[in-house]
């Protein structure tokens, strides 16, 4: 008898809990959409940032980087080599100078981003069977200039080398297959996976897309907390208007509001945008969805925890905006994760962005399944659990403070 009564009681409680949560959820939706600043961050920034950045980085690679040439050899071979380099996608020879001084001047004036120098003995060395040298001088102000010139000239000199080798062997009476065997006994094949064009946007944008979600959530929740504190008469985060509503319901109800909103935004950011801008998107959508659930919850609870320390609407942004940059490097996509110093790697695991970015790149860009990203996936759930506890604890602390202040006021 008591047992059934207990059951009915807990069922009632469950229903009332759900009702409370629903009410908090609706209230939080109102808070979000009533606040112009939050709408700007949550909605406008989330919608506009991906489009802006994708448009800026639309050209994935450098095409026809201008380069100067000093050809002191004036030979048939040098002219042919230069013609080949000019014909590559990466390089365009825009100036021909007779001395290195002139070329250096064009380089200093930033009219060219590299110099190719062919010495006077180039032709003689080739004719006499010695090694000939081509010198390149690369602009290091952007590594993309350097890569373009290096790859194009490397490819063309190797090609010329091969051609000369075969010619020489032919002269020595070795022809056909036998010459090929001597010229390259072990040919090799290179395959660049997942970003075949070595594109800059294909590399960077997946990182930024996850980062946009993480940072807009973080700053938006920070701003909401700041507003709550400014409007609250005790300057604490949680208003103790209804003492019957439990702390778990508050935290869960609020987080559910952000989660539902960001589920839609994630669909736009992670599915529509990559299709629209032709970024890598070979991942299975179900796997991405599986990943995004703990990522969003971890980010939300993390932000709610940190938001306790935000006193004003604007302070969170002023203090932590620079951290977006730090998060890019901590994610281990540009500077490889295996090479990040142990301390910083441990530090990077504090932030849901690190695991979110790693896992998203693996699934979306490299076509991995959630199983290959299991480390990040599990880590995100652990973060969700830990930050849920810290968020409830932080809210409890704030509520306690509010209640105490109210009591103090009463006794006074």
């Amino acid at each position, binding site marked *: 008898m008591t047992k059934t009564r207990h059951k009915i009681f807990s069922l009632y409680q469950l229903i009332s809990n759900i009702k409370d949560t629903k009410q908090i959820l609706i209230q939080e939706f109102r808070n979000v959409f009533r606040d112009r600043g939050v709408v700007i961050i949550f909605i406008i920034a989330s919608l506009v940032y991906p489009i802006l950045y994708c448009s800026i980085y639309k050209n994935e690679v450098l095409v026809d980087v201008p380069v100067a040439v000093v050809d002191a050899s004036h030979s048939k071979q040098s002219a042919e080599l230069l013609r080949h380099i000019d014909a590559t996608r990466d390089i365009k020879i825009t100036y021909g100078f007779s001395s290195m001084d002139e070329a250096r001047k064009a380089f200093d004036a930033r009219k060219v981003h590299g110099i190719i120098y062919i010495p006077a003995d180039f032709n003689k060395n080739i004719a006499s069977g010695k090694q000939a040298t*081509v010198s390149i001088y690369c602009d290091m102000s952007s*590594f993309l200039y350097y890569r373009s010139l290096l790859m194009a000239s490397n490819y063309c000199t190797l090609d010329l080398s091969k051609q000369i080798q075969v010619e020489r062997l032919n002269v020595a009476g070795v022809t056909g297959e036998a010459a090929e065997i001597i010229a390259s006994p*072990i040919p090799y094949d*290179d395959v660049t996976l997942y970003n075949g064009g070595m594109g800059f946007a*294909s590399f960077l944008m997946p990182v930024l897309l996850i980062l946009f979600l993480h940072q807009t959530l973080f700053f938006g929740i920070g701003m909401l907390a700041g*507003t709550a504190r400014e409007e609250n008469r005790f300057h604490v985060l949680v208003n103790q208007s209804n003492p019957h509503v439990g702390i778990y319901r508050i935290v869960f109800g609020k987080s559910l509001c952000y989660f539902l909103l960001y589920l839609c935004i994630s669909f736009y950011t992670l599915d529509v945008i990559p299709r629209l801008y032709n970024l890598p998107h070979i991942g299975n959508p179900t796997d991405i969805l599986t990943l995004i659930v703990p990522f969003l919850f971890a980010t939300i609870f993390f932000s709610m925890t940190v938001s306790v320390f935000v006193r004003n609407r604007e302070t969170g942004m002023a203090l932590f905006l620079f951290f977006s940059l730090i998060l890019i490097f901590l994610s281990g996509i540009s500077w490889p994760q*295996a090479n990040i110093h142990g301390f910083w790697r441990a530090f990077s695991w504090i932030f849901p962005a690190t695991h979110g970015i790693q896992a998203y790149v693996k699934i979306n860009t490299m076509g991995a399944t959630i199983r290959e990203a299991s480390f990040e996936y599990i880590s995100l759930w652990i973060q969700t659990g830990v930050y849920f506890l810290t968020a409830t604890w932080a809210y409890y602390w704030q509520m306690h403070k509010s209640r105490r202040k109210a009591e103090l006021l009463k006794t006074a």
Partner: protein
Amino acid sequence: MPNKTIAGIVATLKRELSRMKSRPLYFLATVGVMAFCYLFFLTFFSPGQPTAMPTGVVDLDHSSISRKFIRNLNATQQSKVVMYLNSHTEARKEMQKGNIYAFVEIKPGFAADVLSNRRPKMTFYVNDAYLIAGSLLYKDITYMSALTSASMQQQVLQAKGVSQSQIMGQIQPVTLDTHLIGNPWANYGVYLINLLLPGVLQLMVLLMTIFPIGVELKERTSREWLRSADNSMAVALIGKLLPYTIIFTIVGIIGNVLLYQFMHYPAQAGIGWMFLATFIYVLAYQAIGIFIIGLLPVLRDGVAMAALYGLFAFTFAGFTFPIEHMPPATQIFSELFPIRDYFRIYVNQALHGTSISYSCIYYVIMLVFLLLPLPVYNRLKKAAIYLHYPTK
């Protein structure tokens, strides 16, 4: 300067200093953030280039030739063989897990094919989703593959009685001699930190120009602020922002010293020009900060604008993806960022060591930004007096 003006500046300055002491935010957002960034970036990129990146090998031949190749690959600076895998699928899975950034596949019967002149192919795979790791490993593995091929060639030619000097001419008739101007080590720290730190600096300068002014409007203390400056907006601005000019210039110059003296990053044409650039750079961004809060005299909107504009600086400096390879509209847009001029000065003065005549124009352009407070001067003053904008 009349005494009254000086008195106004001193009074405003004193008022601001006491405000700055009242909250930890001011110290954190000026010195704290920059100190953290110095510590972070200088330790993060300390090796200069990533070394010993995990590489896998699918060696189905197990011959002395394949083992020698793997040994040689391991000896290169950038790759480290961490895994021996049994199949292509297994290797691909490890790559997708992110445990290796590249792998080499050597088919069974490889050595036998080499010895019987059947020209077996060696295949390697690099992961370019990680662009830096992929490019560097690509370079290393290509080099080792070419070297392995060359050493085979050398054996054949030696057996045929060709002299050593002719062998080199035969193996590699044309060599490439690469000079990296200003950064011969291809050091990523030199490449990135030189712009990342000024990037963070401008972000903080913007925010800490907009915040101290905007917070007066928000907390409705702006009249008091103006009164301390004897009702002159110019005096009020100078008195308020002077502490930040001094702090950020010192912090910026400490950054210059850290990079060019302590880390010995290239500063070919002397460090003095970079000091000057840093000082004007701070002023230019303060002027932009005044412009933004003058245009939108609401703290929230000002901060949001600063965030939008300030974060674009990293893109429009033009050191990661060169500006002239972006769509034309964005190229014009990039001129609105003083960091673009700072980047050009840095390239000319520090990296390439050219004559100052190439850079003068960029110092002048940065100075032009100092005119920006003029068009919003009255608007800001009215906002400070009438407080007719929303506070949140």
